[in-house]
């Protein structure tokens, strides 16, 4: 009993010594049927850094990414925090059923985060908040859910509005969106980051309340799957 406790303690000590400079081989899968992802930010960072936290207000940098897909603000925050950052590994948009791969040397950083905007949505993003990178080499799988940044009303109107504070959806890159929607809502009742309730959509491409198509642009969680191999 004492000996096994000692062994466990020493193995923990050993693995924490080995925690530095981890090399990660990461593959991101878009699991959705009709959602397209903007350039990903993937980062290794310390215990005090968060791109976002559920239940708290989004930073203006995350708002830039969640409303318009622009990752530059989030990358700036991470660089200031001395994070190891990979930006836009897919070289543009990640389509349904597609995957992208990246290598990340986390250096001394023990936590992994990820963000990307869901198109077409007003301010939906997929995110991982500070996943503790295992110290044991091997393959790990992470299911990633969609969140609502809480910074913009989900009016579901595709009007090119991607700048922070501008209503509307920047684009439906699948060219399967509608026009002349009257707007699903003008309110955002929960202004903190929360699990996205999903899009409503309708089946009227030239009217109705939404420019989204209920047969194409809905989703159920999880939206992404990550394969993380700790080398």
């Amino acid at each position, binding site marked *: 009993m004492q000996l096994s406790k000692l062994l466990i303690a020493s193995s923990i000590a050993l693995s924490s010594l080995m925690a530095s400079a981890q090399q990660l081989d990461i593959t991101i899968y878009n699991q959705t049927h009709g959602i397209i992802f903007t350039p990903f930010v993937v980062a290794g960072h310390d215990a005090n850094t968060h791109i976002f936290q559920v239940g708290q207000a989004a930073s203006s940098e995350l708002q830039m990414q969640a409303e318009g897909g622009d990752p530059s603000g989030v990358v700036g925050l991470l660089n200031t925090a001395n994070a190891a950052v990979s930006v836009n590994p897919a070289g543009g948009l990640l389509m*349904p059923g597609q995957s992208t791969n990246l290598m990340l040397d986390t250096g001394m950083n023990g936590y992994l985060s990820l963000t990307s905007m869901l198109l077409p949505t007003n301010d939906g993003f997929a995110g991982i908040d500070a996943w503790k990178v295992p110290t044991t080499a091997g393959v790990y799988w992470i299911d990633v859910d969609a969140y609502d940044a809480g910074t913009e009303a989900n009016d579901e109107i595709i009007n090119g509005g991607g700048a922070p504070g501008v209503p509307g959806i920047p684009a439906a890159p699948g060219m399967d969106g509608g026009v002349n929607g009257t707007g699903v809502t003008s309110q955002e009742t929960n202004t903190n980051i929360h699990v996205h309730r999903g899009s409503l959509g309708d089946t009227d491409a030239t009217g109705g309340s939404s420019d989204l198509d*209920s047969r194409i642009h809905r989703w159920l969680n999880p939206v992404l799957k990550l394969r993380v191999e700790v080398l």
Partner: protein
Amino acid sequence: MKFSKENSRLSRNFRQIGIVLAAVFFVSACNDTTDPAPVTIVPTKIFRLDATNLTANQPMSPVAVVLHTSGDFWQIGQPVSVAIETLAEGGDNSQMLQSAMADNSVSTAGILLPGASASAFITSTNFSNLYLSAATMLVNTNDAFSGINRIAVDTLAVGETLAFNKAAYDAGTESNSEMSGTIPGPADGGEGFNSQRDDRDFLTLHSGVVTQDDGLATSVLNESHRFDNPVILVKITRVQ
């Protein structure tokens, strides 16, 4: 009533195991008469699979359970096999059960109703690189299915259980029209398998059904047929 049915199914399964064990013993007994040297009993692993339908009103087709030593039955982003297409569009698991990859396969009995559970026993004499896959259709959909793919079970100890809450997949082989005549389940009684592939033709997670109650006028489904993830709980226990 349900309890006794469950019991009889269990005892039938144990009887099957008994037959397997008797056969193994018979082989070793034969060896014994021809060769007085060591008695070899073929070691057999027995796994029990339990599946619970977590949905509100999506009956599930009989669950195909397959042990295999290589391969995947499906992968996100890849076109599914005709065997999976057949299962996902019509609930017919026969091609998956007869897959060339299969080391052994078995199906649960009958339709797995919402809220109900089903179980099956499966055996193997393979001890390394052993994987378990299982699949079932959500029958009030065009081509939604769920299950587990390529779960390593070779390191599972006797009595140990793995549990998975799984999401619904969209096979991508049939458009999610929800139209009359396209859905094999009780909501429609329409067509099952059709070799035409008129959707994206690669595997994704399912985005859910829209239904007539949520504005899709041509849908035969109603609000009760909607589902959210997870849709099924799958447990694997090594019993021997």
